[in-house]
């Protein structure tokens, strides 16, 4: 009950920020429309809708990192968290209260991306539902990464690190915009060690119906989600105790 009250408040804070809506929903839609327009004129396999849409859905989730990081950092700066620490809320209420409301926002964002993709020619099949279910561990990783950053950095730093650095990192190392094998070498090796490319490949496998290809990528994403969530919980508890 207490956790749900806190979660409801977190959802309201995010959804009432017009910048969040603009970037969270608007940006992926614009990207899909723009790249599909380019694809219509200069066709390249990379930007075919079945290949592009999963990438955009995953890229859009990097904004969830920004949302959760900004929310936690702002709560710390405004002393709202300090006030809440003096109430009967427990540590688990805070963690779940921050994570749970962003999960449906992430799924809704991905659903909108896939709906636009359907309008642009992606076949409307059950695979889209699979992709939406598999978006959950990817979203959890992104949200936990935000919680981790928000527990460590202030609002200004979060804007730079999550808004610029992480967004770019997840874009460059995800294989959405170019084939990583074309670059090869160390770049490709690093990209494969990180979860971004696996998240995109997981979604692509789900959309194409090739679930047997999805499991190794799912394992990597789940591993990163678990480790990042654990790290976020530990860091949040540490700063809570230090408070």
């Amino acid at each position, binding site marked *: *009950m*207490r956790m*749900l*009250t*806190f979660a*409801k*408040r977190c959802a*309201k*804070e995010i959804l*009432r*920020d017009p910048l969040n809506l603009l970037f969270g929903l608007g940006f992926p839609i614009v990207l899909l429309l723009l790249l599909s327009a380019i694809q219509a004129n200069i066709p390249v396999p990379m930007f075919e809708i079945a290949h592009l849409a999963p990438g955009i859905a995953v890229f859009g989730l990097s904004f969830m990192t920004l949302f959760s990081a900004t929310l936690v950092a*702002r709560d710390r700066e*405004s*002393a*709202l968290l*300090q*006030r*809440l*620490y*003096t*109430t*009967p*809320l427990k540590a688990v209420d805070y963690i779940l209260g921050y994570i749970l409301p962003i999960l449906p926002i992430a799924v809704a964002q991905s659903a909108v991306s896939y709906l636009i993709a359907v309008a642009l020619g992606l076949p409307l099949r059950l695979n889209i539902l699979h992709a939406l279910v598999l978006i959950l561990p990817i979203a959890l990783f992104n949200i936990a990464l935000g919680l981790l950053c928000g527990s460590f950095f202030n609002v200004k730093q979060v804007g730079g690190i999550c808004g610029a650095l992480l967004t770019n990192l997840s874009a460059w190392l995800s294989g959405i915009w170019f084939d990583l094998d074309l670059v090869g070498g160390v770049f490709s090796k690093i990209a494969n060690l990180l979860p971004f490319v696996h998240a995109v490949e997981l979604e692509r496998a789900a959309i194409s119906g090739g679930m047997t290809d999805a499991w190794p990528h799912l394992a990597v994403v789940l591993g990163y989600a678990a480790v990042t969530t654990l790290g976020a919980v530990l860091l949040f508890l540490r700063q809570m*105790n230090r*408070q």
Partner: protein
Amino acid sequence: MEAIHTTNLTKQYKHLTAVDRLNLTIHQGELFSLLGINGAGKTTTIKMLSCLSMPTAGDALVGGSSILSDRQAVKRIIGVSPQETAVAPNLSVKENLELMCGIHGLSREKRQERITELASQLKLHDILNKKAGKLSGGWQRRVSIAMALISDPSILFLDEPTLGLDVIARSELWDIIRSLKGRVTIILTTHYMEEAEALSDRIGIMKNGRLLVVGTARELMEQTGAAKFEDAFITIVKEAK
């Protein structure tokens, strides 16, 4: 009856003793002010008593429960208005109050009753549907105090409640605090001498983490032979080692 009783309450940071063996008793329904210059240990004391910070040594009983071993019980009976304005900026004033009601586990009926009661007491009716982040500093402080009072706490901590407010907003907050006297035990920290003198039943003066004296404003003035409370404060602080 005792609302708060501290025994050798101490907070030590690496090279600094922020609060040094504090022994203090605050009675139920009393308005007790902690006065001191910057770094005296007022806020650290409040943070320990409100379970925000663990003491390095000693203990305190808040409403009969230990801040070391029964923190959840303490948290259920206290309300805190921190020094910084602590409101959810994108939520309306009513939603901020509802948030605190939910966190304290108040039933739906009780929530409405408390919000109506506090809105009337703190004159919040006109701003209930306004976003808290858009309010002036004075109104945000008022909302902050309302949030601290929503659970009907028996002990209320007000950390520098009028800091940075203009004279009218300060006077209005004083009226609100006065209206709570007797019903709620209030522990107030302030830099303003006239505030402590006007509101407090008793005053404690701290310096370098130590509690120097405790008494009514009149007692402290008589003790130092000062005509004004501010002079009494200065004498006590200057004479302390």
